[in-house]
Protein backbone atom coordinates (compact mmCIF):
# COMPACT_ATOMS: atom_id res chain seq x y z
CA UNK A 1 0.00 0.00 0.00
CA UNK A 2 1.48 3.32 -1.09
CA UNK A 3 -0.14 6.53 0.12
CA UNK A 4 0.79 9.97 -1.19
CA UNK A 5 0.00 13.10 0.84
CA UNK A 6 0.09 16.54 -0.78
CA UNK A 7 1.05 19.37 1.55
CA UNK A 8 1.09 23.12 1.13
CA UNK A 9 3.15 25.51 3.21
CA UNK A 10 1.30 28.73 4.03
CA UNK A 11 1.55 31.85 6.20
CA UNK A 12 0.41 30.98 9.70
CA UNK A 13 -3.35 31.66 9.63
CA UNK A 14 -3.26 32.34 13.39
CA UNK A 15 -1.58 35.68 12.69
CA UNK A 16 -3.83 38.27 14.40
CA UNK A 17 -5.87 40.41 11.98
CA UNK A 18 -4.17 43.52 13.40
CA UNK A 19 -0.83 42.32 12.05
CA UNK A 20 -2.17 41.09 8.73
CA UNK A 21 -1.33 43.24 5.67
CA UNK A 22 -1.70 42.75 1.97
CA UNK A 23 0.46 44.10 -0.82
CA UNK A 24 -2.23 45.44 -3.15
CA UNK A 25 0.27 45.70 -6.05
CA UNK A 26 1.64 42.17 -5.83
CA UNK A 27 -1.77 40.91 -4.71
CA UNK A 28 -0.45 38.77 -1.92
CA UNK A 29 -0.17 38.86 1.85
CA UNK A 30 2.88 40.49 3.40
CA UNK A 31 4.75 37.86 5.37
CA UNK A 32 5.97 40.21 8.12
CA UNK A 33 6.64 38.30 11.33
CA UNK A 34 4.33 35.41 10.45
CA UNK A 35 5.78 31.93 10.52
CA UNK A 36 5.25 29.37 7.77
CA UNK A 37 3.20 26.29 8.63
CA UNK A 38 1.58 23.28 6.96
CA UNK A 39 -1.94 24.25 5.89
CA UNK A 40 -4.36 22.91 8.51
CA UNK A 41 -6.40 20.52 6.36
CA UNK A 42 -3.18 19.11 4.92
CA UNK A 43 -2.16 18.21 8.47
CA UNK A 44 -5.47 16.39 8.81
CA UNK A 45 -4.79 14.66 5.48
CA UNK A 46 -1.37 13.55 6.72
CA UNK A 47 -2.86 12.26 9.98
CA UNK A 48 -5.57 10.35 8.10
CA UNK A 49 -2.89 8.64 5.98
CA UNK A 50 -0.77 7.85 9.06
CA UNK A 51 -3.79 6.27 10.79
CA UNK A 52 -4.55 4.18 7.72
CA UNK A 53 -0.96 2.90 7.67
CA UNK A 54 -1.02 2.27 11.45
CA UNK A 55 -4.22 0.23 11.17
CA UNK A 56 -2.98 -1.72 8.16
CA UNK A 57 0.32 -2.46 9.91
CA UNK A 58 2.21 -1.84 6.68
CA UNK A 59 2.49 0.58 3.82
CA UNK A 60 4.57 3.46 2.60
CA UNK A 61 3.74 7.17 2.75
CA UNK A 62 5.27 9.80 0.48
CA UNK A 63 4.75 13.51 1.20
CA UNK A 64 4.76 15.95 -1.73
CA UNK A 65 4.93 19.70 -1.50
CA UNK A 66 4.83 22.22 -4.33
CA UNK A 67 6.70 25.10 -2.80
CA UNK A 68 9.80 27.28 -2.61
CA UNK A 69 13.01 26.32 -0.80
CA UNK A 70 11.36 27.15 2.55
CA UNK A 71 8.90 24.30 1.98
CA UNK A 72 11.53 21.79 3.10
CA UNK A 73 10.46 22.74 6.64
CA UNK A 74 6.93 21.46 5.95
CA UNK A 75 8.39 18.26 4.51
CA UNK A 76 10.71 17.83 7.51
CA UNK A 77 7.70 18.10 9.74
CA UNK A 78 6.06 15.30 7.72
CA UNK A 79 9.24 13.21 8.02
CA UNK A 80 9.27 13.76 11.79
CA UNK A 81 5.75 12.28 11.82
CA UNK A 82 7.29 9.24 10.11
CA UNK A 83 6.32 9.50 6.48
CA UNK A 84 8.81 7.41 4.49
CA UNK A 85 9.73 9.84 1.73
CA UNK A 86 9.37 13.57 1.23
CA UNK A 87 9.80 15.34 -2.10
CA UNK A 88 9.66 19.04 -2.88
CA UNK A 89 8.44 20.23 -6.25
CA UNK A 90 10.39 23.31 -7.23
CA UNK A 91 7.72 25.99 -7.40
CA UNK A 92 10.37 28.53 -8.43
CA UNK A 93 10.55 26.88 -11.85
CA UNK A 94 6.82 27.33 -12.41
CA UNK A 95 5.75 30.96 -11.95
CA UNK A 96 2.10 32.01 -11.46
CA UNK A 97 0.79 28.58 -10.57
CA UNK A 98 -2.94 28.23 -10.06
CA UNK A 99 -5.02 25.22 -9.03
CA UNK A 100 -4.90 23.66 -12.50
CA UNK A 101 -1.12 24.06 -12.73
CA UNK A 102 -0.55 22.71 -9.22
CA UNK A 103 -2.74 19.71 -10.02
CA UNK A 104 -0.76 19.03 -13.22
CA UNK A 105 2.54 19.18 -11.35
CA UNK A 106 1.27 16.89 -8.60
CA UNK A 107 -0.11 14.49 -11.21
CA UNK A 108 3.29 14.32 -12.90
CA UNK A 109 4.92 13.58 -9.54
CA UNK A 110 2.34 10.91 -8.63
CA UNK A 111 2.94 9.21 -12.00
CA UNK A 112 6.64 9.03 -11.14
CA UNK A 113 5.74 7.49 -7.79
CA UNK A 114 3.31 4.84 -9.11
CA UNK A 115 1.84 2.65 -7.91
CA UNK A 116 0.10 5.11 -5.56
CA UNK A 117 -3.07 3.68 -4.07
CA UNK A 118 -4.57 6.72 -2.40
CA UNK A 119 -3.56 10.36 -2.84
CA UNK A 120 -4.58 12.65 0.02
CA UNK A 121 -5.05 16.45 -0.20
CA UNK A 122 -6.48 18.89 2.31
CA UNK A 123 -9.97 20.08 1.37
CA UNK A 124 -8.63 23.60 0.76
CA UNK A 125 -5.48 25.54 1.49
CA UNK A 126 -5.58 27.96 4.41
CA UNK A 127 -4.38 30.92 2.33
CA UNK A 128 -6.30 31.04 -0.95
CA UNK A 129 -9.01 28.51 -0.05
CA UNK A 130 -9.13 27.28 -3.64
CA UNK A 131 -10.63 23.88 -2.71
CA UNK A 132 -10.00 22.63 -6.22
CA UNK A 133 -6.58 20.92 -6.38
CA UNK A 134 -7.77 17.51 -5.10
CA UNK A 135 -10.54 17.23 -7.68
CA UNK A 136 -8.40 18.59 -10.51
CA UNK A 137 -5.62 16.17 -9.58
CA UNK A 138 -8.10 13.28 -9.69
CA UNK A 139 -9.20 14.48 -13.11
CA UNK A 140 -5.60 14.73 -14.37
CA UNK A 141 -4.90 11.19 -13.16
CA UNK A 142 -8.33 9.95 -14.33
CA UNK A 143 -9.05 8.56 -10.90
CA UNK A 144 -12.19 8.83 -8.79
CA UNK A 145 -12.34 11.73 -6.35
CA UNK A 146 -13.97 11.58 -2.91
CA UNK A 147 -14.41 14.85 -0.99
CA UNK A 148 -14.38 15.79 2.71
CA UNK A 149 -13.00 12.51 4.04
CA UNK A 150 -12.13 12.27 7.76
CA UNK A 151 -11.13 8.61 8.03
CA UNK A 152 -9.92 5.81 5.73
CA UNK A 153 -9.81 2.05 6.32
CA UNK A 154 -9.08 -1.02 4.26
CA UNK A 155 -12.26 -2.87 3.31
CA UNK A 156 -11.06 -6.01 1.56
CA UNK A 157 -9.72 -4.98 -1.84
CA UNK A 158 -11.29 -1.55 -1.45
CA UNK A 159 -11.10 1.39 0.91
CA UNK A 160 -13.90 2.56 3.17
CA UNK A 161 -13.83 6.36 3.33
CA UNK A 162 -15.84 8.04 6.05
CA UNK A 163 -16.80 11.54 5.07
CA UNK A 164 -18.80 14.54 6.23
CA UNK A 165 -21.98 15.48 4.43
CA UNK A 166 -24.44 18.31 4.93
CA UNK A 167 -26.69 15.99 6.93
CA UNK A 168 -24.09 14.03 8.88
CA UNK A 169 -21.85 11.23 7.70
CA UNK A 170 -21.55 8.68 5.00
CA UNK A 171 -19.19 5.89 4.08
CA UNK A 172 -17.96 5.70 0.50
CA UNK A 173 -16.37 2.50 -0.75
CA UNK A 174 -13.86 2.98 -3.47
CA UNK A 175 -11.19 0.83 -5.10
CA UNK A 176 -7.64 2.16 -5.42
CA UNK A 177 -6.29 4.13 -7.10
CA UNK A 178 -8.25 7.19 -5.95
CA UNK A 179 -7.78 10.77 -4.77
CA UNK A 180 -9.43 12.07 -1.61
CA UNK A 181 -9.74 15.51 -0.04
CA UNK A 182 -9.62 15.55 3.75
CA UNK A 183 -11.49 17.72 6.22
CA UNK A 184 -10.88 18.23 9.94
CA UNK A 185 -12.54 16.10 12.55
CA UNK A 186 -12.02 14.91 16.13
CA UNK A 187 -10.68 11.69 14.61
CA UNK A 188 -7.83 13.18 12.57
CA UNK A 189 -6.25 15.83 14.79
CA UNK A 190 -2.53 15.92 13.96
CA UNK A 191 -0.20 13.99 16.24
CA UNK A 192 2.94 15.47 17.81
CA UNK A 193 6.35 14.24 16.60
CA UNK A 194 8.75 12.50 18.97
CA UNK A 195 12.04 14.20 19.76
CA UNK A 196 14.14 11.41 18.22
CA UNK A 197 12.01 11.54 15.05
CA UNK A 198 12.57 15.29 14.87
CA UNK A 199 16.31 14.69 14.94
CA UNK A 200 16.06 11.96 12.34
CA UNK A 201 14.02 14.23 10.07
CA UNK A 202 16.59 16.98 10.40
CA UNK A 203 19.30 14.72 8.95
CA UNK A 204 17.29 13.60 5.92
CA UNK A 205 18.04 14.85 2.42
CA UNK A 206 14.92 16.09 0.67
CA UNK A 207 14.96 15.71 -3.10
CA UNK A 208 13.58 18.55 -5.22
CA UNK A 209 11.97 17.79 -8.56
CA UNK A 210 11.67 20.42 -11.25
CA UNK A 211 10.67 20.57 -14.91
CA UNK A 212 13.45 18.17 -15.94
CA UNK A 213 12.63 15.47 -13.38
CA UNK A 214 8.87 15.75 -13.90
CA UNK A 215 8.99 16.08 -17.69
CA UNK A 216 6.66 19.06 -17.46
CA UNK A 217 7.22 22.42 -19.16
CA UNK A 218 6.13 25.52 -17.26
CA UNK A 219 4.30 26.75 -20.35
CA UNK A 220 2.08 23.64 -20.37
CA UNK A 221 0.62 24.34 -16.95
CA UNK A 222 -1.84 27.10 -17.78
CA UNK A 223 -5.43 25.91 -17.38
CA UNK A 224 -8.78 27.63 -17.89
CA UNK A 225 -8.30 29.74 -14.74
CA UNK A 226 -5.47 31.58 -16.51
CA UNK A 227 -8.25 33.51 -18.28
CA UNK A 228 -9.44 35.02 -14.98
CA UNK A 229 -8.16 38.49 -14.20
CA UNK A 230 -7.04 38.81 -10.58
CA UNK A 231 -8.37 42.33 -10.19
CA UNK A 232 -7.79 43.11 -6.53
CA UNK A 233 -6.91 41.93 -3.05
CA UNK A 234 -7.91 44.05 -0.07
CA UNK A 235 -8.64 43.93 3.64
CA UNK A 236 -12.35 44.64 4.11
CA UNK A 237 -13.26 47.36 6.58
CA UNK A 238 -15.67 46.64 9.38
CA UNK A 239 -18.23 49.42 9.56
CA UNK A 240 -20.31 47.99 12.33
CA UNK A 241 -20.82 50.06 15.48
CA UNK A 242 -21.21 47.90 18.54
CA UNK A 243 -23.81 49.08 21.02
CA UNK A 244 -22.47 48.39 24.51
CA UNK A 245 -25.22 47.16 26.82
CA UNK A 246 -24.19 48.60 30.14
CA UNK A 247 -25.34 48.35 33.73
CA UNK A 248 -24.14 48.29 37.32
CA UNK A 249 -24.08 44.51 37.50
CA UNK A 250 -24.74 41.32 35.54
CA UNK A 251 -28.48 41.45 36.26
CA UNK A 252 -28.85 44.94 34.82
CA UNK A 253 -26.82 44.01 31.74
CA UNK A 254 -28.88 40.83 31.34
CA UNK A 255 -32.10 42.88 31.41
CA UNK A 256 -30.64 45.14 28.66
CA UNK A 257 -29.73 42.07 26.62
CA UNK A 258 -33.21 40.56 27.01
CA UNK A 259 -34.65 43.86 25.79
CA UNK A 260 -32.32 43.80 22.80
CA UNK A 261 -33.30 40.21 21.97
CA UNK A 262 -36.96 41.21 22.10
CA UNK A 263 -36.23 44.19 19.81
CA UNK A 264 -34.70 41.97 17.15
CA UNK A 265 -37.64 39.61 17.58
CA UNK A 266 -35.84 36.50 18.71
CA UNK A 267 -37.44 36.61 22.14
Amino acid at each position, binding site marked *: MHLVVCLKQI*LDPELPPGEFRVDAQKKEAVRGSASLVISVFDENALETALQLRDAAGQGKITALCVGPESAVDALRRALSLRVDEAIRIREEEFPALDGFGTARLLAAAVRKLEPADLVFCG*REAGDWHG*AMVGGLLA*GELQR*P*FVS*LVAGAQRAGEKYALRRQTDEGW*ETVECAAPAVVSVTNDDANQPRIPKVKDNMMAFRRQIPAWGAAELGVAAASLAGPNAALEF*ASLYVPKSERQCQVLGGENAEEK*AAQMAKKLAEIQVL
Partner: protein
Amino acid sequence: MKNVVALLIAAPGSLRRTEAEVLSAARRLADGLGGRVTAVILGAADESWTADAAAYGAERVARVEHAALGSYQAELAVEAARQACLALQAEVCFVPSSTYGLELAPVLAQKLGAAVVADVTAAAGDAATGAVKITKPVYGGKANSELIARQAPLVLAMRSRAVAPVEKKAGAAAEVMKLDVQLDAALAKSTIVERKTEAAGGARLEDARIIVSGGRGLGGREGFALLEELAGLLGGSVGASRAACDQGWVPASWQIGQTGKKVAPELYLAVGISGASQHLVGIGGAKHIVAVNKDEKAPIFQAAEAGVVEDFKTFIPALIQAVKKHKAAEGK
Protein backbone atom coordinates in the same frame (compact mmCIF):
# COMPACT_ATOMS: atom_id res chain seq x y z
CA MET B 1 -22.31 35.63 -20.89
CA LYS B 2 -26.05 35.26 -20.61
CA ASN B 3 -26.82 31.60 -20.09
CA VAL B 4 -26.73 30.91 -16.36
CA VAL B 5 -27.31 27.46 -14.89
CA ALA B 6 -28.07 26.67 -11.24
CA LEU B 7 -27.14 23.05 -10.67
CA LEU B 8 -29.24 21.43 -7.97
CA ILE B 9 -28.44 17.94 -6.68
CA ALA B 10 -31.56 16.07 -5.60
CA ALA B 11 -32.02 15.43 -1.89
CA PRO B 12 -34.91 13.95 0.06
CA GLY B 13 -37.76 16.29 0.95
CA SER B 14 -38.43 19.80 -0.25
CA LEU B 15 -35.96 22.29 -1.68
CA ARG B 16 -33.62 23.51 1.07
CA ARG B 17 -31.86 26.74 1.83
CA THR B 18 -28.71 25.38 0.11
CA GLU B 19 -30.54 25.14 -3.23
CA ALA B 20 -32.33 28.47 -2.66
CA GLU B 21 -28.91 30.13 -2.28
CA VAL B 22 -27.59 28.65 -5.54
CA LEU B 23 -30.74 29.73 -7.39
CA SER B 24 -30.51 33.21 -5.85
CA ALA B 25 -26.86 33.66 -6.81
CA ALA B 26 -27.74 32.62 -10.36
CA ARG B 27 -30.73 34.97 -10.46
CA ARG B 28 -28.69 37.99 -9.30
CA LEU B 29 -25.94 37.32 -11.81
CA ALA B 30 -28.44 36.82 -14.66
CA ASP B 31 -30.12 40.12 -13.71
CA GLY B 32 -26.76 41.89 -13.95
CA LEU B 33 -25.93 40.26 -17.27
CA GLY B 34 -29.37 40.60 -18.78
CA GLY B 35 -29.39 36.83 -19.08
CA ARG B 36 -31.58 33.97 -17.97
CA VAL B 37 -31.47 31.20 -15.38
CA THR B 38 -32.01 27.53 -16.03
CA ALA B 39 -32.33 25.37 -12.93
CA VAL B 40 -30.96 21.90 -13.62
CA ILE B 41 -32.31 19.36 -11.15
CA LEU B 42 -30.05 16.33 -11.11
CA GLY B 43 -31.80 13.15 -9.96
CA ALA B 44 -35.22 12.32 -8.58
CA ALA B 45 -36.06 15.33 -6.41
CA ASP B 46 -39.56 15.94 -5.11
CA GLU B 47 -41.99 17.36 -7.72
CA SER B 48 -42.23 20.57 -5.66
CA TRP B 49 -38.61 21.46 -6.54
CA THR B 50 -39.78 22.55 -10.01
CA ALA B 51 -42.22 25.17 -8.69
CA ASP B 52 -39.78 26.25 -5.98
CA ALA B 53 -36.98 26.75 -8.53
CA ALA B 54 -39.36 28.92 -10.56
CA ALA B 55 -40.33 30.82 -7.41
CA TYR B 56 -36.65 31.64 -6.83
CA GLY B 57 -36.47 33.14 -10.29
CA ALA B 58 -35.50 30.38 -12.74
CA GLU B 59 -37.02 31.04 -16.17
CA ARG B 60 -36.52 27.42 -17.12
CA VAL B 61 -36.36 24.21 -15.11
CA ALA B 62 -34.62 21.20 -16.66
CA ARG B 63 -35.18 17.93 -14.83
CA VAL B 64 -32.51 15.31 -15.43
CA GLU B 65 -34.02 12.05 -14.28
CA HIS B 66 -32.15 8.93 -15.24
CA ALA B 67 -32.43 5.53 -13.54
CA ALA B 68 -28.71 5.73 -12.69
CA LEU B 69 -29.19 9.03 -10.81
CA GLY B 70 -31.41 7.53 -8.11
CA SER B 71 -29.15 8.59 -5.29
CA TYR B 72 -26.02 10.70 -5.65
CA GLN B 73 -22.95 9.01 -7.12
CA ALA B 74 -19.95 11.17 -8.01
CA GLU B 75 -18.96 10.02 -11.50
CA LEU B 76 -22.54 9.65 -12.71
CA ALA B 77 -23.50 13.07 -11.33
CA VAL B 78 -20.50 14.72 -13.03
CA GLU B 79 -21.28 13.07 -16.35
CA ALA B 80 -24.97 14.02 -16.17
CA ALA B 81 -24.03 17.59 -15.24
CA ARG B 82 -21.52 17.75 -18.09
CA GLN B 83 -24.11 16.64 -20.65
CA ALA B 84 -26.70 19.02 -19.22
CA CYS B 85 -24.30 21.99 -19.36
CA LEU B 86 -23.42 21.21 -22.96
CA ALA B 87 -27.05 20.68 -24.02
CA LEU B 88 -28.08 23.97 -22.40
CA GLN B 89 -24.97 25.81 -23.61
CA ALA B 90 -24.33 26.89 -20.05
CA GLU B 91 -21.91 29.79 -19.79
CA VAL B 92 -21.93 30.08 -16.02
CA CYS B 93 -22.80 27.07 -13.87
CA PHE B 94 -23.44 27.58 -10.14
CA VAL B 95 -23.06 24.69 -7.72
CA PRO B 96 -23.31 24.65 -3.91
CA SER B 97 -20.17 24.38 -1.76
CA SER B 98 -21.67 21.26 -0.17
CA THR B 99 -19.81 17.95 0.08
CA TYR B 100 -21.25 16.89 -3.28
CA GLY B 101 -20.84 20.34 -4.84
CA LEU B 102 -17.15 20.49 -3.91
CA GLU B 103 -16.69 16.97 -5.24
CA LEU B 104 -18.37 17.70 -8.51
CA ALA B 105 -17.16 21.24 -9.29
CA PRO B 106 -13.46 20.66 -10.11
CA VAL B 107 -14.07 17.48 -12.10
CA LEU B 108 -16.94 19.08 -14.02
CA ALA B 109 -14.88 22.20 -14.74
CA GLN B 110 -12.03 20.11 -16.05
CA LYS B 111 -14.31 18.16 -18.37
CA LEU B 112 -15.93 21.37 -19.66
CA GLY B 113 -12.62 23.23 -19.94
CA ALA B 114 -14.17 25.79 -17.60
CA ALA B 115 -12.52 28.16 -15.15
CA VAL B 116 -13.59 27.25 -11.65
CA VAL B 117 -13.77 29.20 -8.39
CA ALA B 118 -15.02 27.85 -5.05
CA ASP B 119 -16.11 29.54 -1.84
CA VAL B 120 -17.52 32.47 -3.80
CA THR B 121 -19.55 35.00 -1.83
CA ALA B 122 -20.77 37.17 -4.71
CA ALA B 123 -20.92 37.07 -8.50
CA ALA B 124 -21.96 40.28 -10.23
CA GLY B 125 -22.61 40.67 -13.94
CA ASP B 126 -21.94 43.59 -16.24
CA ALA B 127 -24.46 43.64 -19.08
CA ALA B 128 -22.32 45.96 -21.24
CA THR B 129 -19.23 43.74 -21.30
CA GLY B 130 -20.72 40.38 -20.33
CA ALA B 131 -18.02 40.05 -17.68
CA VAL B 132 -18.56 38.47 -14.27
CA LYS B 133 -16.96 39.93 -11.15
CA ILE B 134 -16.35 37.23 -8.55
CA THR B 135 -15.74 38.02 -4.87
CA LYS B 136 -14.02 35.41 -2.77
CA PRO B 137 -12.67 35.81 0.76
CA VAL B 138 -9.11 34.55 1.24
CA TYR B 139 -6.56 34.21 4.06
CA GLY B 140 -9.18 32.87 6.44
CA GLY B 141 -11.46 35.84 5.83
CA LYS B 142 -8.79 38.44 6.56
CA ALA B 143 -8.90 39.65 2.97
CA ASN B 144 -11.19 39.65 -0.06
CA SER B 145 -10.10 38.86 -3.58
CA GLU B 146 -11.88 39.97 -6.74
CA LEU B 147 -11.59 38.07 -9.98
CA ILE B 148 -13.00 39.05 -13.34
CA ALA B 149 -14.11 36.42 -15.82
CA ARG B 150 -14.63 37.52 -19.40
CA GLN B 151 -14.83 34.09 -21.01
CA ALA B 152 -17.27 31.23 -20.72
CA PRO B 153 -17.58 28.60 -19.45
CA LEU B 154 -17.32 29.24 -15.75
CA VAL B 155 -18.11 26.98 -12.78
CA LEU B 156 -18.75 28.77 -9.48
CA ALA B 157 -19.22 27.02 -6.14
CA MET B 158 -21.06 29.43 -3.86
CA ARG B 159 -20.08 29.52 -0.22
CA SER B 160 -23.00 28.29 1.82
CA ARG B 161 -24.86 30.78 4.00
CA ALA B 162 -23.16 33.73 2.32
CA VAL B 163 -25.99 34.54 -0.09
CA ALA B 164 -29.31 35.88 1.15
CA PRO B 165 -32.03 34.12 -0.85
CA VAL B 166 -33.95 36.35 -3.27
CA GLU B 167 -37.59 36.97 -2.49
CA LYS B 168 -39.64 33.91 -3.32
CA LYS B 169 -42.43 34.58 -5.83
CA ALA B 170 -45.01 31.87 -5.29
CA GLY B 171 -46.75 30.83 -8.48
CA ALA B 172 -44.03 32.18 -10.81
CA ALA B 173 -44.10 30.38 -14.14
CA ALA B 174 -41.15 28.66 -15.76
CA GLU B 175 -40.62 26.61 -18.86
CA VAL B 176 -40.28 23.01 -17.65
CA MET B 177 -38.37 20.43 -19.65
CA LYS B 178 -37.05 16.91 -19.28
CA LEU B 179 -33.42 16.63 -20.25
CA ASP B 180 -32.21 13.23 -21.40
CA VAL B 181 -28.66 12.13 -20.65
CA GLN B 182 -26.78 9.01 -21.65
CA LEU B 183 -25.23 7.32 -18.63
CA ASP B 184 -23.37 4.06 -18.35
CA ALA B 185 -23.57 2.61 -14.83
CA ALA B 186 -20.01 1.32 -15.31
CA LEU B 187 -18.77 4.93 -14.97
CA ALA B 188 -19.40 4.69 -11.21
CA LYS B 189 -16.12 4.09 -9.42
CA SER B 190 -17.37 4.42 -5.85
CA THR B 191 -20.42 3.38 -3.85
CA ILE B 192 -22.00 5.09 -0.88
CA VAL B 193 -22.58 2.14 1.45
CA GLU B 194 -23.85 3.94 4.54
CA ARG B 195 -25.54 7.29 5.26
CA LYS B 196 -26.01 8.67 8.74
CA THR B 197 -27.90 11.77 9.76
CA GLU B 198 -26.25 13.57 12.60
CA ALA B 199 -28.16 13.48 15.87
CA ALA B 200 -27.68 17.11 16.85
CA GLY B 201 -29.09 18.93 19.84
CA GLY B 202 -31.65 21.30 18.35
CA ALA B 203 -31.85 22.15 14.65
CA ARG B 204 -28.94 21.63 12.25
CA LEU B 205 -26.60 24.56 12.80
CA GLU B 206 -26.88 25.52 9.14
CA ASP B 207 -30.64 25.87 9.48
CA ALA B 208 -30.87 27.14 13.06
CA ARG B 209 -32.74 30.40 13.61
CA ILE B 210 -30.91 31.08 16.85
CA ILE B 211 -27.38 29.98 17.73
CA VAL B 212 -25.71 30.39 21.10
CA SER B 213 -22.02 29.75 20.57
CA GLY B 214 -19.10 29.35 22.96
CA GLY B 215 -15.34 29.75 22.66
CA ARG B 216 -12.10 29.45 24.54
CA GLY B 217 -13.38 31.86 27.18
CA LEU B 218 -15.79 29.23 28.49
CA GLY B 219 -12.83 27.40 30.00
CA GLY B 220 -14.32 23.93 29.74
CA ARG B 221 -17.24 21.62 29.03
CA GLU B 222 -19.21 22.95 32.03
CA GLY B 223 -19.59 26.38 30.45
CA PHE B 224 -21.37 24.78 27.50
CA ALA B 225 -24.02 23.33 29.84
CA LEU B 226 -25.04 26.93 30.61
CA LEU B 227 -25.19 27.75 26.89
CA GLU B 228 -27.33 24.67 26.27
CA GLU B 229 -29.77 25.81 28.92
CA LEU B 230 -29.97 29.28 27.37
CA ALA B 231 -30.30 27.89 23.83
CA GLY B 232 -33.08 25.58 25.03
CA LEU B 233 -34.99 28.56 26.41
CA LEU B 234 -34.55 30.54 23.20
CA GLY B 235 -35.38 27.57 20.96
CA GLY B 236 -31.89 27.64 19.47
CA SER B 237 -28.89 25.40 18.90
CA VAL B 238 -25.40 25.48 20.38
CA GLY B 239 -22.28 26.04 18.32
CA ALA B 240 -18.61 26.55 19.13
CA SER B 241 -15.42 28.15 17.92
CA ARG B 242 -12.46 26.10 16.74
CA ALA B 243 -10.60 26.78 19.99
CA ALA B 244 -13.39 25.14 22.02
CA CYS B 245 -13.54 22.13 19.67
CA ASP B 246 -9.75 21.73 19.59
CA GLN B 247 -9.78 21.58 23.40
CA GLY B 248 -12.16 18.64 23.14
CA TRP B 249 -14.87 20.42 25.16
CA VAL B 250 -17.46 19.85 22.43
CA PRO B 251 -17.57 17.73 19.25
CA ALA B 252 -15.97 19.00 16.03
CA SER B 253 -19.42 18.94 14.40
CA TRP B 254 -20.33 21.98 16.50
CA GLN B 255 -17.55 24.05 14.99
CA ILE B 256 -18.44 27.26 13.18
CA GLY B 257 -15.95 29.10 10.99
CA GLN B 258 -13.70 28.72 7.99
CA THR B 259 -12.84 25.15 8.98
CA GLY B 260 -16.29 24.36 10.32
CA LYS B 261 -19.88 25.15 9.47
CA LYS B 262 -21.15 28.31 7.82
CA VAL B 263 -24.32 29.54 9.46
CA ALA B 264 -26.96 32.19 8.85
CA PRO B 265 -29.19 32.52 11.92
CA GLU B 266 -31.40 35.44 12.88
CA LEU B 267 -29.39 35.70 16.10
CA TYR B 268 -25.81 34.65 16.70
CA LEU B 269 -24.92 35.04 20.37
CA ALA B 270 -21.14 34.66 20.76
CA VAL B 271 -20.03 33.89 24.30
CA GLY B 272 -16.36 33.90 25.27
CA ILE B 273 -15.37 33.96 21.60
CA SER B 274 -12.57 36.38 20.76
CA GLY B 275 -13.64 36.71 17.12
CA ALA B 276 -10.71 35.48 15.02
CA SER B 277 -11.34 36.17 11.33
CA GLN B 278 -11.49 32.45 10.57
CA HIS B 279 -14.46 32.29 12.96
CA LEU B 280 -16.15 35.39 11.52
CA VAL B 281 -16.03 33.77 8.08
CA GLY B 282 -18.56 31.22 9.36
CA ILE B 283 -21.07 33.78 10.62
CA GLY B 284 -21.09 36.25 7.73
CA GLY B 285 -24.68 35.24 7.00
CA ALA B 286 -25.96 35.99 10.52
CA LYS B 287 -28.58 38.74 10.65
CA HIS B 288 -27.83 39.89 14.21
CA ILE B 289 -24.57 39.22 16.04
CA VAL B 290 -24.49 39.85 19.78
CA ALA B 291 -21.38 39.21 21.88
CA VAL B 292 -20.52 38.53 25.50
CA ASN B 293 -16.88 38.75 26.47
CA LYS B 294 -15.03 39.91 29.54
CA ASP B 295 -12.34 41.49 27.37
CA GLU B 296 -13.70 44.75 25.99
CA LYS B 297 -10.98 44.75 23.32
CA ALA B 298 -12.01 41.35 21.88
CA PRO B 299 -12.35 41.68 18.07
CA ILE B 300 -15.79 40.03 18.21
CA PHE B 301 -17.18 43.40 19.33
CA GLN B 302 -16.21 44.85 15.95
CA ALA B 303 -18.42 42.30 14.25
CA ALA B 304 -21.28 42.56 16.75
CA GLU B 305 -24.14 45.05 16.74
CA ALA B 306 -24.52 44.79 20.52
CA GLY B 307 -22.33 43.48 23.30
CA VAL B 308 -21.92 42.98 27.00
CA VAL B 309 -18.55 43.17 28.74
CA GLU B 310 -18.90 40.67 31.57
CA ASP B 311 -17.77 37.26 32.76
CA PHE B 312 -20.06 34.67 31.21
CA LYS B 313 -20.22 32.77 34.53
CA THR B 314 -22.20 35.56 36.12
CA PHE B 315 -23.82 36.93 32.98
CA ILE B 316 -25.36 33.82 31.39
CA PRO B 317 -27.25 32.72 34.54
CA ALA B 318 -28.51 36.31 34.86
CA LEU B 319 -29.55 36.29 31.19
CA ILE B 320 -31.36 32.96 31.68
CA GLN B 321 -33.33 34.56 34.51
CA ALA B 322 -34.03 37.70 32.46
CA VAL B 323 -35.27 35.60 29.51
CA LYS B 324 -37.51 33.55 31.82
CA LYS B 325 -38.87 36.77 33.34
CA HIS B 326 -39.54 38.23 29.89
CA LYS B 327 -41.32 35.08 28.79
CA ALA B 328 -43.43 35.03 31.96
CA ALA B 329 -44.40 38.67 31.41
CA GLU B 330 -45.37 37.91 27.82
CA GLY B 331 -47.32 34.88 29.00
CA LYS B 332 -45.24 32.49 26.87
